[in-house]
């Protein structure tokens, strides 16, 4: 089975960049003071007041829905040595109001996937390949290129695969001294990276921790830890 892919799978980012942030945290303290990841007037980025569990009145992840706010943040980020850009989002607000006996903390959950894929040396197409009985070796889905084996005497052949990794020409094997084959590689293994963020709230009540996670697709999962 072959599936054509974009080898840089994180919405067009290169492997060296941070993933796009779609939500920001907001924390409401017991006295009503509010802390937000980005200053709403200047776009300046703030550190979380406390990365650990502590009492809050409420905690939330809020999607970026204001284009001017997004522009403000990204203009500031562009001036930093390690910029982290944000983008507009239609994700829902994740808001938890805490009881008197509950503590909470907010954080990003980063996920970085690395996966090999094949790249066609003939036409540049990138694709994933899963071995199947009907397709025992990879073939470019666009131009049909595949890796082939070559005998110096008989040209392109389908070799005999020996357990020790040796490939022999089947014609030489029948007619005379055994002879090895050379691989003509047209498909090359590469590694793709996918980066994404999920947005997490953990609420602690006694020994029980409940975790709320919203991912980039808007799916919310709730787990007891």
């Amino acid at each position: 089975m072959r599936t054509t892919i974009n080898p840089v799978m994180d919405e067009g980012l290169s492997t060296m960049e941070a993933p796009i942030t779609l939500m920001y945290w907001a924390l409401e303290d017991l006295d009503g003071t509010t802390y937000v990841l980005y200053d709403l007037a200047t776009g300046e980025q703030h550190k979380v007041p406390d990365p650990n569990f502590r009492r809050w009145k409420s905690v939330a992840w809020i999607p970026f829905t204001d284009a001017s706010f997004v522009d403000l943040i990204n203009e500031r980020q562009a001036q930093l040595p390690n910029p982290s850009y944000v983008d507009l989002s239609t994700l829902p607000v994740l808001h938890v109001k805490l009881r008197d006996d509950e503590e909470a903390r907010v954080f990003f959950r980063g996920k970085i996937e690395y996966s090999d894929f094949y790249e066609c040396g003939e036409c540049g197409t990138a694709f994933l390949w899963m071995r199947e009985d009907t397709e025992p070796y990879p073939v470019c889905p666009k131009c049909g290129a595949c890796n082939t084996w070559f005998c110096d005497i008989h040209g392109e052949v389908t070799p005999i695969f020996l357990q020790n990794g040796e490939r022999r020409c089947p014609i030489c094997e029948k007619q005379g001294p055994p002879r090895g084959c050379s691989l003509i590689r047209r498909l090359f293994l590469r590694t793709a990276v996918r980066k994404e963020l999920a947005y997490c709230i953990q609420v602690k009540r006694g020994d029980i921790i409940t975790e709320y996670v919203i991912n980039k697709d808007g799916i919310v999962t709730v787990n007891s830890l």
Partner: protein
Amino acid sequence: MAATVNVEEGNGSGPTWTVITSGRYCTTDSYNPGSNYPCVVPTSGNNYSYWKHHRIAWTGVGTQISNIRWYTPGNVASTWQLGTGGQLMVGLRDSGDHGCPTANYQQATGTQGTTGHYIKDATNGHDYYKSQAATPGDADNYTSASPLTVDTTVYNANGASKSVVTQVKLVTDATQGDKSNITFTFLYDEI
């Protein structure tokens, strides 16, 4: 804000850490072996790939990065047709984090072009793992539902995590040839 996080592979005696671009299990110590030094199906016993160190490294951390884990899709052995008992193995410690600290990195060795040394080999194995009671685990046991605990350190500055140390074990009924594509995943918490 989100830090810039990349997966790196360590090679050489230094080691040199390189952002992964062309990773492949093979029988030499290289982050980009191309089609050279393929893993070899043994005629008897087991063969191994050279072991690999993979870690995440980051810049632009806000306050902290922590809770670093790693997992596979759970079907590596069957997808790569590693044979009966063949598997992708991962170095395990008896307790605590299973990741190898950078200070304990050890260059992969073996018989180039044929087999790597087994992580647990009493003489030539990986010093951080070979004296443990635990044997290397089957990476297929570490999935999104139960990832491997790589590093529980709380990092407050730019840096890198401990490494996942893995190698492929091949047995006599493994299948030689091009391999299907597989995805591995690191998870981390960041604030």
